[in-house]
């Protein structure tokens, strides 16, 4: 499959969540379009030589700002579009590998002591790297979606 066509899978990925959150039917297309747009922006950044955290941040900002703009135009609430659109960018593989690594440490006791030590170090390193990557991507996503809050002035009340 063409790598860019693969990005279209972000649309069904967002659709299920839009249904779960009871998004009004007329906004479903917007949610899916925004999901593809965000995910493709991330791919563009990564292809241009950026890392995945920066890519997610930019993808999130694209989603956040577009959602704000569309919401203004259609008298909607921005989170209706942005939450389901952001979900395809969740770093599932990194999170899975982190849990897998930690589980590996828990089941190590069957190995002899010396070997166990070495593999534990290896597993811990792998798990930590993946956990840190996943957290950074999640934080970048949250910052990105919240970009309109951060950039527009807000009166405290």
């Amino acid at each position, binding site marked *: 499959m063409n790598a860019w066509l693969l990005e279209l899978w972000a649309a069904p990925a967002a659709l299920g969540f839009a249904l*779960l959150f009871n998004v009004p039917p007329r906004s479903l297309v917007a949610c899916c379009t925004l999901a593809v747009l965000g995910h493709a922006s991330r791919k563009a950044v990564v292809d241009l030589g950026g890392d995945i955290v920066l890519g997610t941040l930019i993808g999130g900002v694209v989603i956040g700002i577009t959602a704000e703009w569309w919401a203004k135009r259609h008298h909607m609430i921005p989170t*209706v579009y942005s939450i389901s659109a952001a979900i395809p960018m969740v770093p599932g593989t990194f999170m899975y590998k982190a849990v897998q690594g930690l589980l590996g440490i828990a089941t190590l006791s069957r190995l002899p002591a010396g070997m166990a030590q070495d593999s534990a170090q290896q597993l811990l390193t792998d798990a930590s790297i993946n956990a840190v990557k996943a957290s950074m991507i999640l934080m970048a996503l949250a910052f990105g979606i919240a970009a309109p809050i951060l950039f527009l002035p807000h009166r405290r009340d």
Partner: protein
Amino acid sequence: MLMPPTRATLPLQEILELSLLAGLLVHQSGGDTARTSATIRRMALALGASRADTVVSSLNIGVTVEQDKLRETAFRKAPHMGANFTMLTAVARLVEAVEEQRIDADTARAQLDEIVRQPHFYPHWLIAMLVGVSCGGFAALFGGDTVAIACTTLGSGTGMALRLFLHRRHYVPFMFAMASSLTAMLVTGLLLKLVHSGTQEAAMAASVLFLIPGVPFINGAADLFHANYLNGMVRIMMGVLFVIGIAVGVSLALRIL
């Protein structure tokens, strides 16, 4: 902010009740703290109160409305209900209509009652099915092949059906996160043992993503950035507990597989 005199005739109790109900609906359908607070205040002012001060905690909301040195206060329990963006949008539009004086208090009350009664658009079986397809989409985004996508779709659909069932039975979130992630990953893993796929890992990683607590995390971040630190931390903590539930379910499933 003073409203035209024709509006000020509405009794203070009425203003209190309507604005608190609007706030309650926003709070329970996935609005962040700033939105809940603004909804209550705007509704009260639009209905003729001269001042409205709100309290929004994670599980309770309250407001004091003032008019000519008279004050009324009320609190409501506001347990979490899960996101319902149709409701959120409907209340936001209602508040706008009241502010622009397009509808009066009686119409507003009737519309709020209707919003409460309105059922979800989508039946549970459709949600379970399409959430399954969602996770298939995740598997594709992680580089999975067609077999991986199909297995993930079936596994996650089953997990989602279980989640909706346990949610209806009022199990605590931690429990249904654990049970659904365990089920989804077991079904996906067992299907992958039957049919061969070169991209097992993509399917396994994608199979539990339907449980990601996106609304608590994103609303939590919004609360933190709006300087509602306490509610923001509560929401993020809710999400973290849910994620721990998923991780426990996954680790159990991986031990079995």
